[in-house]
């Protein structure tokens, strides 16, 4: 009584990927297991911690609350896709390192994705807007102070590059 498998096609980090998954397979598990992209982490499996945040057609979503089959044909960006094709780090990635915005690094991919979306929509956010923008992500190491600093720094870096 094996489970029925569904063929899905996703564009993940700009690359067309195919997978065969049961209907109940979470996007987070599909990314990690079927596609081998283990940068997306799972911290609670109930959509609160934000570790599993990825960009779905550019918008941040909880991949642990998303069925893989429901995003057939869509574009996904994971932490692995934030760097340039040549491996150059994105401004958000650089800023996180520069500002010591990560410690154990487990929540970091989710923060990076949230911050990337935030800055794309609002290239020069205020302090309150940054805090609001990352308020869907839990971290247990950093106390968030350096994450807030990093988001501002990333805005600066993006401004310099623009």
């Amino acid at each position: 009584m094996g489970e029925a498998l569904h063929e899905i096609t996703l564009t993940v980090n700009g690359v067309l990927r195919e997978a065969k998954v049961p209907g109940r397979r979470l996007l987070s598990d599909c990314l990690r297991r079927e596609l081998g992209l283990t940068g997306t982490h799972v911290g609670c499996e109930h959509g609160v911690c934000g570790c599993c945040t990825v960009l779905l057609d550019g918008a941040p979503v909880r991949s642990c609350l998303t069925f893989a089959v429901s995003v057939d044909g869509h574009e996904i960006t994971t932490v692995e896709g934030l760097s340039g094709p040549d491996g150059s780090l994105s401004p958000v990635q650089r800023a996180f390192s520069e500002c010591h915005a990560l410690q154990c690094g487990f929540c970091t991919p989710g923060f990076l994705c949230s911050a990337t979306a935030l800055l794309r929509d609002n290239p020069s956010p205020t302090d309150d807007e940054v805090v609001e923008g990352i308020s869907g992500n839990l971290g247990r190491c950093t106390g968030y102070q350096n994450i807030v600093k990093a988001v501002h720094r990333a805005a600066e870096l993006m401004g310099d590059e623009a």
Partner: protein
Amino acid sequence: MTTKLFGERVQRREDLRLITGQGRYVDDLGNGALAAAFVRSPHAHARIRDIDVSAALDVDGLVAIYTWEDLPERVRDPLPLLIPHPALTHGRTAYPLAREIVRHVGEPVVMVVARDRYLAEDAAALIEVDYEFLKPVVGIEEAAQGAHLVHQDVPGNAGAHLVQEVPSPQGLGAGEAIDAAPHVLSFRLDFERSASMPLEGRGVYARWDADDRSLRVFSSTQTSTSVRMAIASKLGLPLPSVEVIAPDVGGGFGVKIVHPWPEEVLVPWAAMLLGQEVKWIEDRREHFISSAHERGQVQHVRVGFDDQGHVLGLDVTILHDHGAYTPYGIIVPIITATQLLGPYRIGAYRVEFTSIYTNTVQVTPYRGAGRPQGVFCMERTMDRIAAHLGLDRTEVRAANFIQPDQFPYDQGLIFQDGRPLIYDSGDYPESLRMIKELIGWDGFAALKAEAEARGRRLGIGIGCYVEGTGVGPYEGGHVQVTSDGRVHVSTGLTSQGQGHETVFAQIAATELGVPLDKVSVVTGDTRRFGYAVGTFASRAAVMSGNAIALACRKVRDKALRIAADALEADPRDLEIEDGVVHVVGNPGASIPLGTVAVLSNPLRYAFDEETKRATQFSGVASMDRPPVDEGEEPGLEGRDYFSPVRSTFASGMHAAIVETDPDTAEIRILRYAVVHDCGRLINPMIVEGQIHGGVAQGVGGALYERMVYDGHGQLLNASFMDFLMPYATEVPYIETAHLETPSPLNPLGIKGAGEAGVIPVSAVIASAIEDAEGITIDRMPISPSDLHELRALAAS
């Protein structure tokens, strides 16, 4: 001038892989492994009548189902009691799978192995366990009455009872000193449960190699060496056949020092038995109900003091809730009892604790490890004394401080490492001066009055602590320079985000005079370093940092001896700079460290151009001495250990300004300031990061986090939806200042920094709320509803 990196804000070397999704956490490994899932008890206290697995047998992809009955000798035995203590007269540990009785919701009863986790959980859901309910024992005081028992052979549910007493300088006991004091206060304090709650839960992945009968286990642990010894012992394998690796670990904060967890025994056992890789990754609910909590205590305080606020006698009685089992002994209440005294030199002290069983998740150290409760007790006491005498709260503290010329200062107690509680160094008056200046203590009254005039309610609070850090028994370091000039450092303790790869590389680069990018660091991998204790008690920098420094000094001495031979110079005239050994004042007479490494290993066979230099016909060797001199070993490497006579004592003071809403009782932290003394700083950026994270956890404990058990022993808020951890919106900006009083107890003069941030936060926030409200705060955490109720109580 050598390469100076110690003390610099060096960027972390861990970051690149972690910001690009290339980290290796345990669940990132073993994609094809079988998955384990567990059937866990839904009841807090019950007898297992029957386990019926028949419905699960048809699940597609099912591989195996195990109950306690299926486990072989040793594997089936109770888990070890890790830290025995004479006062722990009734220590009890769990079976890896429940045998007959379950004692808390979440206790593992059946293990299922299947092709993937979805299927393993399908099967687990179909297993029927028939339970006979027993009376659950919940709540510290109810449990202490002993009407119902968690373990039938533990009367009064009391696992341990310990009294420590220090008489006054005049020889009075605490009771006498209090009775004789001009002022006496007595009160009760309550501290709720919280938990480490790392974003990555526990996880174990085991690979059994049937061909050479060896086992490789990856575990999200704070102590891979000790997990290795436990697994070898449980599975009856020779120690060299077992390797345990802590890969990238997604936070620990104490909970992952406990070991072996049931899963750390069962997963490798199943992998051996099945001849296939097996992995288990804890989910969030499992972490809430099956790992460990901390903090819960009730304290009764009696204190006697004089008109200036000098504490003449202090008597504290603690009821400590250790949950259903005691695998980690009574370390937490011992730390509460001993670290309670903080930076103070008081008259007589008596502390008594009883450690109580309840039908709840076991209690083991969470960052701070008993100190937040002790500091809460002492600092609330200081505030009460100040209020009673009408004195400034900082004056009362200053009146009781140990003075800088009184170190080493013996508190007369036995600490958590079994050694005397003797403070090594510190400067508490200076620390107080700094924190008052940073927060603006003296100008606050005006600020408060001004706010009050506008209908706003502000309060200021302070908290002081001393933290025994860097406990033994030891750590080691191994340093190897290879022929390419790279430096490979390893140490046995583990990392969970503390930046060890960076700070240990800073130490090695500084000691050896090499560029930082030539140094790589491996932690928590028994293949590289087999002897270690683990990462806990703010000990990694002190213990492994010094061990690595000592190992580097051995390597440096050896490098200079070999280079001196090659350069025909006196080793004392040599220095190493940028990875090159050269004669002081004569940069031309030099030899790269990589070449020294080649020469350190006399060869018969060359495998590249560089190694030709060390072969037997190269003409460099003296014909009068053996190729490897007596007392020397081949290779440019060294190993050393650091084992201190006792702990170092870091300290700090925090202050906060809070605002409470007169209508909604909402509590907002407007400012938070930290003065921190962890001895010499290796990397101030990393230390500040540790402080920020600690304070954030402290804010959680002070205002939000509590484990809510109902009378049936059900944890009602076992999810991130209901257990309120702070988001960025809840944590204030933290202003930090450093004071550096080096420790005389280790070559680098460092103390520990990992736990400091969390320790005084509850005390500070309570102090500030009390100041804002004029209502005595005697419990933590304080939610708006709690404050609302306290207001109503105070008004009635």
